[in-house]
């Protein structure tokens, strides 16, 4: 086994015992990137020189007995998250030269431990997509089959972890952007409860949905990262304080709900369904668990609600991307045309489409029938979950209705492309924590992800019991 294949915990132990150094670990990851990135396109920037300097510094820390859990461990970050002095483009041409002079709060916390930033990952431009085919830097390929998509929008980060180009990754999930590519690539992806992790320095997509979380090789690793990055931040007024709660189950046994709507949806792949059902059968043998069938009747409305609200918040957030204070400015006859031309050339079709939908939904004629209506239905989706969580501790669903599909394939297979986000968006609409865990492979050797959804702010419970449930 090569050292770049290890988990965080294993790296920590190896560094502590002196089995290898951070420089060696960083070099192993860099070598894997060199070998594979040309084909997979998981990175937009690789900070080779800087990473090796950081690794040397980490080795000094370890030698002098100042090792923390992440000291000297190489990690990668989705390109829509700001990293100090490192190019951060969000895969958008309009930000092709943007170098933030600060770290996002979550990145600062990780780097304070002495972790080594190895590079920035390709993603769908500004996070807009479910396949990573919408990147202005080209699509990311799935390491399990390079003819297939990585999933999106955090495809580059999921691929980097699946292909051992870094030990862990930090990405962003608005409506499924961490969990869906994690499922397609066979790694663990956590979307924390909205408000638990600071969004400061994370390029906003939909401010009432956006979350930052880890992509890792194990549930334990995800828990390690989440404990470090969580917490209130005065730079993000939407962060909440979470008091350390004792892990309590609602009944004598841990009660897990299986929402029927998620298994009955049209277009679900039979093999995926079977793998998840078998897994549920397997874990139901655990005597500490009780599995019950539950219903979330509002599920089918999550997609229209999601797209209307997200596009609206998106169009408003992206108004700041105007090439005035930073970014690539284009010539125009007057100020209006400088804005309009810079945005026209620096953004791609999908980004512009979301801006157009959102601007329309927020315009006087459409506001009540679209944006406002969607916000009301959102309330009902949340109530749906609240009702179910009075009865159960966690929910189990498939993460995606199909395994990774072929590049370009969905252009003709519209129904299942529409379905790609259907299991991941409801939790996002309600601000709930959810994790995707790899649970099996199809006959074609493609990974299948199982999603576990927790109730709001009970991330710790979600993570602790995920480990118990899956023992992954």
């Amino acid at each position, binding site marked *: 086994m090569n050292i770049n294949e290890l988990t965080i915990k294993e790296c920590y132990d190896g560094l502590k015992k002196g089995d290898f150094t951070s420089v060696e670990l960083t070099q192993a990851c860099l070598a894997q990137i060199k070998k594979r990135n040309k084909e997979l396109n998981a990175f937009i920037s690789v900070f080779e020189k800087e990473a090796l300097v950081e690794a040397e510094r980490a080795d000094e820390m370890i030698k002098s007995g100042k090792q923390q859990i992440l000291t000297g461990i190489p990690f990668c970050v989705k390109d829509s998250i700001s990293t100090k*002095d490192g190019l951060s483009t969000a895969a958008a041409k309009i930000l092709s*030269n*943007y*170098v933030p*002079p600060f770290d996002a709060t979550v990145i600062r916390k990780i780097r304070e431990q002495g972790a080594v930033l190895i590079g920035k990952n390709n993603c*769908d431009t500004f996070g*807009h997509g479910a*396949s990573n085919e919408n990147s202005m830097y080209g699509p990311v390929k799935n390491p399990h089959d390079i003819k297939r998509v990585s999933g999106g929008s955090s495809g580059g980060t999921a691929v980097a972890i699946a292909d051992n180009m870094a030990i862990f990754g930090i990405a962003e999930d608005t409506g499924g952007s961490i969990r869906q590519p994690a499922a397609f690539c066979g790694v663990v992806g956590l979307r924390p409860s909205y*408000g638990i992790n600071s969004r400061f320095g994370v390029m906003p997509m939909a401010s*009432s949905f956006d979350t930052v979380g880890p992509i890792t090789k194990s549930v334990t690793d995800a828990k390690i990262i989440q404990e470090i990055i969580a917490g209130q931040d*005065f730079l993000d*007024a*939407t962060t909440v304080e979470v008091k350390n709660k004792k892990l309590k189950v609602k009944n004598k046994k841990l009660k897990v709900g299986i929402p029927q709507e998620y298994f009955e949806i049209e277009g679900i792949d039979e093999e995926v369904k079977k793998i998840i059902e078998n897994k549920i059968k397997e874990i139901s043998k655990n005597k500490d668990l009780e599995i019950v069938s539950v219903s979330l009747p509002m599920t089918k*409305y999550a*997609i*229209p*609600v999601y*797209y209307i609200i997200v596009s609206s918040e998106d*169009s408003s957030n992206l108004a700041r991307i*105007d*090439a005035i*204070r*930073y970014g690539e*400015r284009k010539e*125009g006859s*007057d*100020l*209006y*045309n*400088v804005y*309009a*031309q810079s*945005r*026209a050339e620096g953004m791609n079709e999908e980004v*512009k*489409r979301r*801006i*157009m*939908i959102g*601007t*329309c939904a927020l*315009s006087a004629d459409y506001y009540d*029938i*679209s944006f*406002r*209506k*969607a*916000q*009301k239905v*959102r*309330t*009902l989706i949340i109530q749906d979950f609240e009702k179910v969580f009075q009865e159960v501790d966690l929910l189990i669903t498939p993460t995606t209705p199909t395994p990774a599909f072929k590049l370009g394939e*969905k*252009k003709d297979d*519209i*129904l299942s*492309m*529409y379905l790609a*986000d259907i299991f991941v968006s409801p939790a996002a609409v309600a601000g709930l924590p959810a994790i995707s865990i790899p649970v099996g492979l199809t006959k074609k050797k493609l990974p299948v992800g199982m999603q576990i959804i927790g109730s*709001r702010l009970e991330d710790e419970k979600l993570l602790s019991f995920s480990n118990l449930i899956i023992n992954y």
Partner: protein
Amino acid sequence: MSFFIFFDKIYLENMKLTLKEIEKIATLARLNLSAEEKKMYTEQLSVIFDYIEMLNEVNTDQVSETYQVTGLKDVVREDEVAFWEEEDKQKLINNFPDKMGNLLKVKAVFDNNDE
């Protein structure tokens, strides 16, 4: 991207949005669109706004909107000048697309025709 492609395929006889409305939205959104893009977005937005009418199946008469999920209210902090290293200030300035000394250079805001 998913569902927009889905709707592309549905043939629409009476489009909900007109080309003129799309041009107005594009102006509000500060996007210079080509003739092709205008046509494409007219079709796609029409389908999308038709599609979301499915939300009308849901009775929301007594339901209030959820604009945020945290329930936080009136979050305030002191309005203080934060300290920035000189080096970091310069990095911000280095990001300016156009500048004069340390000042950000932009086209005139009020007299656009007075070049």
